[in-house]
């Protein structure tokens, strides 16, 4: 294995530690490596298994021990990890990425989108798909993670605007009483997102069953908030021949999602551009390591909204948001994956 070669380089080392393993982070890695080349630093990039602080911290510790001159971490629990992050920030220049922590931990800046804002963008896509209101069902891997909570909240906030938020309501759908919640004109099935526990737990079955409960019901929109959710929804819809009869709104840039957006099967997807996370994190840290603090970001990165036809760049809530065309964005992602050999 070439990576085993033990040449001691004098290059500045920058560490990037994510919160779990995911293709999303492969894109981030691609960006980080690219920036490493650009700024002549050695990038240590690690994806710990399974959203577990107990697995993440030993890697962070090992990086610190190796003398990294900058560290980017995707925080799992901002509140719980505060103490550790504060301690780490006192030893090494620290930035947060993808998931932020409190500013008083001493982290230099946050590289990532505001998940709540991105969630609002999803909400807007839903509104566009079902302008007269309807029934929505949301799918997510875990309702415990900070970014998941932010996204969900954003969607619901947007849908509820300007009406009241989360009014419990029971509707009879296909002869079954369903306890849900009403957000504006939108009725959320079961009153909460369906969590599926991760991509390995056969995520298709949940949208499939949901579609079974919603058979022949008009004005349905299904929302997938983790990268693998939109493809799972799509596949379930296909297997029940319901593509086109229901609306689907996605999140993240799974190749299948992008393709479906291009084909008009999915309304749109909100992407975070993880490549840029990696690139920016390393860029910022390399500069800090060389004593230059001017590159620190002062605001969250903008998300992008991918749709079939794309659109003009807009300024929304103070962020400059791009609306790329699905086919274009697909090609970008493909070349990013290719650069890490996937």
């Amino acid at each position, binding site marked *: 294995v070439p990576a085993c070669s033990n040449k001691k380089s004098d290059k500045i080392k920058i560490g990037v530690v994510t919160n779990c*393993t*995911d*293709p999303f982070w*492969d894109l981030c890695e691609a960006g980080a490596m690219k920036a490493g080349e650009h700024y002549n630093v050695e990038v240590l990039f690690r*994806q710990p298994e399974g959203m577990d602080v107990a697995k993440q911290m030993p890697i962070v510790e090992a990086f610190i021990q190796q003398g990294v001159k900058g560290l980017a971490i995707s925080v799992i629990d901002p509140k719980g990890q505060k103490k550790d992050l504060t301690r780490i920030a006192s030893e090494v220049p620290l930035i947060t990425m993808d998931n932020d922590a409190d500013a008083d931990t001493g982290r230099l800046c946050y590289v990532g989108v505001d998940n709540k804002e991105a969630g609002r963008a999803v909400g807007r896509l839903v509104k566009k798909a079902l302008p007269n209101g309807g029934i929505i069902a949301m799918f997510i891997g875990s*309702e415990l993670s900070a970014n998941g909570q932010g996204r969900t909240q954003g969607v619901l906030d947007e849908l509820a605007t300007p009406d009241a938020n989360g009014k419990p309501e029971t509707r009879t759908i*296909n*002869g*079954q009483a*369903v*306890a849900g919640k009403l957000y504006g004109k939108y009725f959320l099935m*079961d009153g*909460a997102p*369906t*969590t599926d*526990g*991760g*991509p*390995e*737990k*056969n995520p*298709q*079955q*949940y949208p*499939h*069953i*949901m579609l*079974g*409960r919603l*058979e022949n019901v008009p004005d349905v929109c299904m929302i997938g908030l983790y990268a*693998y959710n939109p*493809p*799972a929804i*799509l*596949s379930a819809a*296909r*297997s*029940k*021949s319901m*593509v086109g009869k229901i609306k689907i709104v996605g999140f993240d840039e*799974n*190749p*299948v999602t992008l*393709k*479906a957006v291009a084909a008009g099967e999915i309304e749109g997807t909100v992407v975070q551009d993880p490549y840029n996370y990696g690139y920016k994190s390393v860029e910022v840290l390399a500069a800090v390591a060389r004593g230059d603090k001017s590159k620190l970001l002062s605001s969250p990165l903008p998300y992008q909204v991918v749709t079939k036809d794309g659109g003009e760049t807009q300024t929304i809530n103070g962020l400059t948001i791009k609306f790329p065309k699905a086919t274009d964005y697909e090609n970008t992602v493909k070349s990013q*994956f290719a650069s*890490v050999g*996937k």
Partner: protein
Amino acid sequence: MTRILGVLGLLIVLYALLIESNPAAGSSRNLMYVANIQGRYGVVTLAAALVIIVGGIDLSIGSVVGCSAVMFGVLMEEGVHPFAAVGWTLLFGVQVGLVNGLLITKLRLQPFLVTLCGMFIYRGEARLIGGVVSPAQVIDEHPHFEHSLNTLTYLLIGKNEKGALVFPAMFILLLVLAVVIGFFLHRTAYGRYWYAIGHNELAAKYAGVNVDRQRTIVYVICSMLASLGGILLFLDSSTIQADSAGAGLELYAILGAVLGGCSLRGGEGTAIGMVLGAMVLPVLETLVSFRGLKNNVIPAVIGLTLLVGTIVDELIRRRSRVHR
């Protein structure tokens, strides 16, 4: 016979509850869908069960499923024709089984340890050879594969070119495989060897059975079935992630086998039991979702149901033993 009475009862109760839960749940379309998932589970359950019968265990099943799914996709992306890719992927399974089998029989390593290492290794291999793969991507790169891939999907998964489920092909595949395996287990000399080896290796050896060879064969069949499971997973899923595809499946497979009457002490189990055992979890999961249970309760409900099922099963068996 009493060995499968418990699991049969459990299944009947679960199906009854499912159909009662929602009119949509009892629709033929939904039952077909559930059957298809059962088919996919079943293939790996057969794999696990065979190894359990010869007194071994295979923890690498989940990773082999994942690695095979990724490999199948990557091969096609690289331009290998879908049918050929099926062959190569199954061959990969054979190789995995051979390595497992030889390490266990020739070096006399503990199966648990060997296959646990395998679990790491093949997960790593999956991640090395690819990140995300999907049929859509393959067709994108090689549009001329579309037809063959659709044919494969139709034959193995039962979905038409639009992705609509037409018939539960995976369940039919499971039945076919179970009949073949059942034939070998219950009607041929090989089956006798496997049961004998599982219960008392020395007795088999003294009777002149080539224990090492038979064991290795079983590990090969097991991993080949796991590879087949990977192919099914790829064809059935919209997208495969190397880091998670098939993860944890070995436990479900073993669970299915044990529910179906295999004993981890080896030497016990029937083909029909394996099929029934594999059918439990998918119905249970569907039931739980249809009931609209909160996600938080789901693992607990599944665990408790299985436990109650097991206890009832044991009581039935005990009762029948007394009355014999």
